[in-house]
């Protein structure tokens, strides 16, 4: 990352000898002492200067530590007098503040670094040219690549570069690495990281195409980006309760039209219509029962989810359960009672008789007008004999059979709304057929 670019002003905890950036003062000191031991004599004079510089550079963490340590030592001196007596639990002091300070500094560093990487990732992903030749140039435009002429070993695995082990660059920080140390980030995942609202395509890529299309990253950058993605995912992940609640809502959404349909079918039975059978309505009732069962189970699951009692969450859970129970009781279990077979028979007979009377009346009226119209049969009486002699020839009859097939299918799949539409059409067809028969007769 510390690019050896002459124009750039290097900043940070740089080793005066190898110019490596060491991130913190303590690391720099230990690095200097361990790696540049033999050079210390030569650099003795320099060390004074370094010592001064160190005082200036030293960040708060380390001064804090020093102060804290000094304070602790003072305490110890005071306590010494009591050592001869019975020992109680010694003085303890919280290191929380120190820990927090160290931690926040580190997190801050990660955050700035991650943000820098994300900005670069955004630029890389958004305007990525489709041409492979242009892509390399484009990538270098966004992130300057480290000049690799002086790098002999892979900085990660320390293996020498040669014809078979080529130098590669991390697309996010521009550092050099070998192929074995490279990690690849799928472009689709990269897009999802940059823009979480975008839909994520879930198609899995095999390693080969991933290496061809994905972004080559060093381990460090990859981990930072991956961490960010995990945070993102966990933020968007649904809790168990949420999933159960959503399932419950979707069951309720299904139940609403089912209940409406049931009411309609029930009414139709009571009215003596022949659109639905008793078994159809019973099947519908069974389905509503199943939905109610499902809603009940899910709401119980939500209520049983362990939470601290008395919290808002606990109240919410019990409220959901109550609302669900109420909904089931009021809307799903208070369904109208079905008529018995005998009742239906009764209503249908009444209806039939009414229709008969109507026909009789009509006939008499026609007779009075001097017209004999014996053929004005009721719409329910498509005579079987007629159907037999010229079946498939008449497109109307053909269509009636098609519709009957559709009705059977729709009934089997409990799509009663369609049954009603189709039944209505069948009736229309029958009427039309009847009409044709009449008009064809001389």
């Amino acid at each position: 990352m510390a690019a050896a670019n002459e124009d750039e002003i290097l900043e940070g905890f740089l080793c005066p000898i190898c110019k490596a950036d060491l991130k913190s003062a303590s690391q720099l000191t230990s690095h200097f002492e361990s790696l540049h031991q033999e050079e210390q004599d030569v650099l003795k004079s320099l060390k004074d200067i370094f010592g001064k510089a160190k005082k200036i550079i030293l960040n708060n963490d380390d001064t804090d530590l020093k102060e804290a340590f000094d304070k602790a030592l003072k305490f110890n001196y005071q306590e010494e007098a009591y050592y001869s007596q019975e020992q109680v639990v010694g003085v303890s002091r919280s290191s929380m503040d120190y820990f927090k300070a160290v931690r926040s500094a580190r997190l801050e560093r990660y955050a700035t670094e991650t943000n820098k990487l994300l900005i670069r990732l955004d630029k890389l992903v958004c305007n990525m040219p489709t041409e492979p030749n242009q892509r390399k140039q484009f990538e270098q435009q966004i992130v300057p690549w480290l000049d690799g002429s002086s790098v002999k070993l892979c900085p990660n695995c320390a293996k020498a570069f040669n014809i078979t082990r080529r130098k590669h660059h991390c697309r996010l920080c521009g550092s050099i690495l070998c192929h074995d140390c490279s990690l690849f980030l799928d472009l689709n995942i990269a897009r999802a990281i940059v823009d979480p609202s975008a839909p994520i395509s879930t198609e899995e890529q095999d390693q080969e195409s991933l290496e061809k299309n994905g972004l080559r990253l060093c381990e460090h950058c990859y981990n930072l980006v991956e961490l960010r993605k995990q945070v993102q995912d966990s933020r968007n992940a649904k809790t168990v309760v949420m999933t159960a609640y959503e399932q419950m809502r979707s069951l309720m959404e299904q139940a609403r039209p089912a209940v409406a349909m049931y009411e309609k079918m029930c009414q139709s039975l009571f009215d003596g219509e022949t659109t639905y059978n008793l078994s159809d309505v019973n099947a519908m009732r069974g389905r509503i029962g199943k939905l109610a069962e499902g809603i009940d189970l899910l709401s119980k699951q939500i209520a049983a989810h362990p939470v601290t009692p008395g919290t808002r969450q606990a109240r919410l859970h019990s409220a959901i359960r109550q609302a669900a129970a109420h909904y089931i009781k009021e809307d799903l279990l208070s369904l109208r009672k079905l008529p018995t077979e005998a009742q239906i028979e009764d209503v249908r007979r009444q209806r039939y008789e009414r229709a008969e009377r109507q026909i009789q009346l009509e006939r008499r009226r026609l007779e009075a007008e001097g017209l004999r119209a014996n053929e004005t049969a009721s719409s329910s009486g498509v005579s079987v004999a007629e159907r037999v002699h010229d079946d498939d020839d008449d497109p109307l009859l053909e269509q009636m059979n098609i519709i009957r097939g559709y009705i059977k299918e729709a009934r089997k799949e409990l799509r009663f709304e369609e049954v009603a539409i189709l039944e209505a059409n069948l009736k229309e067809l029958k009427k039309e057929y009847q009409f044709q028969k009449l008009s064809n007769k001389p």
Partner: protein
Amino acid sequence: MATNRTGAQRPNGAPQTKVCQFKLVLLGESAVGKSSLVLRFVKGQFHEYQESTIGAAFLTQTVCLDDTTVKFEIWDTAGQERYHSLAPMYYRGAQAAIVVYDITNQDTFGRAKNWVKELQRQASPSIVIALAGNKSDLAAKRMVEFEEAQAYADENGLLFMETSAKTAMNVNDIFLAIANKLPKSESGGGAGGAGGARRLQDGDTPRASTCCK
């Protein structure tokens, strides 16, 4: 036919997505691609060798507009001459019709014009008619010019699009355009809540729980 009974189930009166149901009929010469259009719209499929329709096929499909759910009750009629007597039964109560022709065949366009004329004479006066020039993927063999059809559609107040069931071009669009043009009032077409609003409504349950406490 579908009476709205959902009101009784929802005394809290939460706003509900309106559900409208419309009868739509497809007309046109045989082999212009009526069934293929419907199949593409309803199931997203296309069969190179679609069997010819017998009588009339029935399918349903639901589309969501901004505030309404439109449920299409689609009657896909057979184009063959012998089934023409069935067509009036299906366009009679229809709120919408798609008249289809094949852009590679001038005769089918003439037949489509006849269908439009028949609809204007016989069908409900408020029927929404769309003209679909199908097989636009075969533009190389085009025999009916786009401008000619567009001019005819403008003259007769029809919706017009060139479609391709094979590439799915404009298929959803033409159905959506029809859905948008249809009147969405309750009387608009036997509309009812029976289809059920598929959209989740926020604040539904909380409201129910507050009034029952």
